[in-house]
């Protein structure tokens, strides 16, 4: 891996107790939830990682510990580097500190993660759903949420599905 990235990863290992892995030229650093805001601030101020490109999550159900990984991808414009931070989140403790103080884009992106996965961010100024309707129940991108697939109508089952479909009368 790149020399600059190697030094940054070493500092993160000392300060935040992070582990890392590499794949196809990318570096993924695993950080715990309580150290993530400090790591982001450190990377933004000391190493000029000024752009937070991605803030999303992955669900690893039925594995409970950890169930989610929250992913932060940082880009440094001046040095042309990229770094990915991953935070494991357990199923029985779905709370994380918010990164809104470090990057303003985290405001909407964390609302999206809450809406789609149910992970709550403490200290977020506006904890509402963003993509689904306000009274929607459930978190769609979790693996135990069904796709909502409707059975397609072929010629052999056309009439029986037609009777069940909720057409509007007028």
């Amino acid at each position, binding site marked *: 891996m790149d020399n600059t990235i190697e030094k940054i990863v070493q500092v993160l290992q000392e300060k935040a107790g992070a582990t890392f892995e590499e794949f196809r030229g990318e570096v993924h650093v695993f950080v715990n939830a309580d150290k993530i805001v400090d790591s982001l601030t450190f990377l933004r101020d000391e190493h000029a990682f000024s752009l937070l490109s991605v803030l999303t999550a992955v669900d690893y159900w039925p594995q409970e510990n950890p169930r989610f990984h929250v992913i932060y991808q940082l880009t440094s414009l001046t040095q042309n580097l990229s770094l990915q931070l991953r935070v494991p989140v357990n199923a029985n403790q779905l709370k994380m500190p918010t990164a809104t103080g470090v990057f303003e884009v985290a405001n909407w992106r964390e609302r999206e993660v809450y809406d789609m996965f149910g992970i709550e961010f403490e200290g977020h100024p506006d904890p509402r759903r963003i993509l689904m*309707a306000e009274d929607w129940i459930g978190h769609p991108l979790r693996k135990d949420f069904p796709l*909502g697939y409707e059975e397609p109508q072929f010629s052999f089952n056309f009439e029986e599905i037609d009777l069940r479909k909720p*057409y509007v009368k007028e």
Partner: protein
Amino acid sequence: MGVEQKLGNMGIVTTTLENAVNWSRTNAMWPMLFGLACCAIEMMAAQASDYDMSRFGMELMRPSPRQSDLMIVAGRVSRKMAPVLRRLYDQMPEPKWVISMGDCASCGGVFNNYAIVQGVDEVVPVDVYVAGCPPRPEALIHGVLTLFEKVKGEKFVDLAKV
């Protein structure tokens, strides 16, 4: 036929009231601007220079539902948007028609999941379905002309029953 043959070219036409009313309805039907997604771009292309919809009487697209007769639902309707769609349909004055443009509005299209209404006829009653993803502007114009034929066949007796 009839009176014109006897009187010659005196500038008189005889027809039924139904034909006259239906003819005037088709010649100046104003669509409501309801473009949601990709089909909206093809609807805009149908309104623009190469495939001009103004030659069929649809000169302007009115954003206000109170001033339009035709709602072209162009694009995918999500579950959050469905109540808004129904409300706008209710605000349109009679007589009104609905064209469901594209696959997503007709049957849910490519997206068979929790977020998209599988066919906009679960929300509003549809008169003409236009297929395609997105339908070419010529396909939309064909759908509009099909709707005109349907309107020309409407009878007053059916309207009185409602």
